[in-house]
């Protein structure tokens, strides 16, 4: 069995592990404006990333946007996921493909689409103006709300598909039994279906949270230059400041925080699942 894992394992090690180790080493180097970096072993980059209030704020914004987007996505995905899971016949496969359809378009293109929707002469403002509801365009683009809105739109299919596959595996009779024993649909959902679908919530929210924490194009295009999240800040250090050591330290800080929060969230949900 171990032999079967070997090719994939080696591939991941070569394409992901080795570059990451190299980046980890860079994060301990020191910055040099002429030669980009100097060989060193300093924790200065990490200290700056953790202590500096400017980067603390960026990290907090990132976590807040990721948490808000994950929560909203979970709430919005439950209904369509349930509907899709319980659907039968030829429409089921068609709607599943339709849910996956946005994933065929790259994140940058989808963000550009949201820009066309939210800009001052975009679809929303033009419609509101056309209806005579506003005279001055609303500032929708380059706001935190725009970032959360677009992020939710982008990650929603992942959550719907993950939840739907888990709900599908919950026997329909369980809901019938709840109804038979007098539970209203809302009660049956909260006390029966939701606890049973927690593994799906766990898998979906983990996936979505990781995607949100590492979002690059959406905050950059829809948040504007004044809205700072970690992935664009990492890129800024590499591609604008040429400060590879600090950029690498920021990247690892983002990785550690994402892993820590994901592990924490998973253990909380897993405990609830066991308790339920």
């Amino acid at each position, binding site marked *: 069995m171990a032999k079967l894992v070997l090719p994939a394992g080696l591939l991941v090690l070569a394409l992901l592990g080795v570059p990451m180790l190299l980046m980890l080493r860079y994060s301990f180097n020191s910055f040099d*404006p002429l030669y980009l970096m100097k060989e060193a072993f300093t924790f200065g980059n990490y200290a700056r990333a953790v202590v500096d209030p400017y980067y603390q704020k960026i990290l907090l914004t990132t976590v807040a946007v990721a948490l808000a987007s994950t929560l909203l996505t979970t709430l919005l995905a439950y209904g369509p996921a349930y509907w899709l899971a319980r659907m039968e016949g030829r429409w089921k496969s068609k709607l599943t493909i339709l849910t996956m359809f946005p994933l065929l378009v790259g994140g940058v293109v989808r963000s550009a689409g949201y820009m066309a929707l939210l800009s001052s002469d975009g679809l929303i403002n033009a419609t509101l103006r056309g209806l005579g509801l506003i005279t001055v365009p609303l500032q929708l683009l380059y706001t935190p709300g725009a970032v959360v809105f677009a992020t939710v739109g982008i990650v929603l299919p992942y959550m719907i598909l993950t939840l739907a596959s888990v709900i599908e595996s919950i026997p329909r009779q369980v809901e019938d039994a709840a109804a038979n024993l007098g539970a209203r649909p809302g009660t049956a959902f909260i006390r029966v279906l939701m606890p049973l679908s927690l593994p799906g919530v766990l898998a979906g929210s983990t996936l979505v949270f990781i995607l949100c924490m590492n979002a690059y194009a959406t905050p950059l295009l829809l948040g504007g230059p004044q809205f700072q999240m970690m992935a664009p800040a990492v890129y800024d250090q590499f591609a604008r400041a040429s400060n590879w050591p600090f950029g690498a330290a920021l990247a690892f800080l983002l990785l550690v925080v994402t892993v820590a929060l994901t592990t924490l969230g998973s253990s909380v949900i897993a405990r609830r699942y066991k308790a339920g």
Partner: protein
Amino acid sequence: MTKLSRRQFLATTSAAGASALLASPALAQSKELVVGTWGGTFGDLLKANVDEALLVPQGYDVLQEISGPVPRRTKLITERMQRRGSMDAALLADFDMHAAARVGALETLDAGNVPNYDTILPFLKKKTSVPLIYSAHVIVYRKDLVKTPPTSVQALWDPAYKGKIGLSDFLYTSNMAYAAVANGGTVDNYANAEKGVEGWKALEAKLLPSTEAVGQALASGDIWLTIISAARGYSWQKSGIDLAWCVPEEGAFPAVYEAGVPKNARHPEAGLAYMNALLTPDAQVAFAEKMGYLPTVKSAKISPELEARIGFSEAEQNRLWTPDLDFIMENQAGLLDTWNRILKG
């Protein structure tokens, strides 16, 4: 019907493929030339007026490697120790090119290896790069909205324009030079630039993510004035926006774009041919007409009408700053950090 066996089919198609390859003069004789450059309109103009007009007829197969300027500069610096680099020619702004030159990544250029080198305007001549185009980052403003035409850099901190000053996030080096000069500093030390940037924050200046966003904000009236190249002002003026620009009495930041050949280029002779092509009058005039950038060679003549719209008077030309490129190179990360902290923090 004749049946074709699998062996016969393979033999026939291989022979056809091989003969097609041999028959293609482009593949048989072409000399590869990889150019690291910006994409978009700039890349298209290079392709039409330099690559296809001048180098393809000489048998070069030009491949544009499109990226941002800092990754390109980083490549030049990090690849310099390798036997072969990934580019035969690289295009960068003068301060980025300066960093590559400082680490010895660039070939020395002169009239011996670039015949058009001697036609370069004296103030733009350098040992390891050729100037491709130039303009200056000036104050560009909406003529219909800014009632008193600005003459000084102080106009950018006029409370009357609160909320109407636009700043390109990409041009933080030029913007901070203006901020320094407005507050008693110089382009050699950027002293007090912080104070100027804080002043912009207090005036609710709009930070815009790209040059295109600056153009859109000017067009919509979201911003009334900004710091951007006179060439861009000209392009937007041509597209119908009611714009004018001025070189402030304190001066303006020069915008010079250069090209160089890496010392470890795979095809150095192709890179040198590219340098020479960039300096030909036809290519230079095309950049002036299409993008509003001024020619960098004495031999390129643009029409007096165009000169009047994109050119600088002698007095304006003399007022352009000569920034300390060493200072910028050594302090660029710090400048960006200050810029980000004040305007984005």
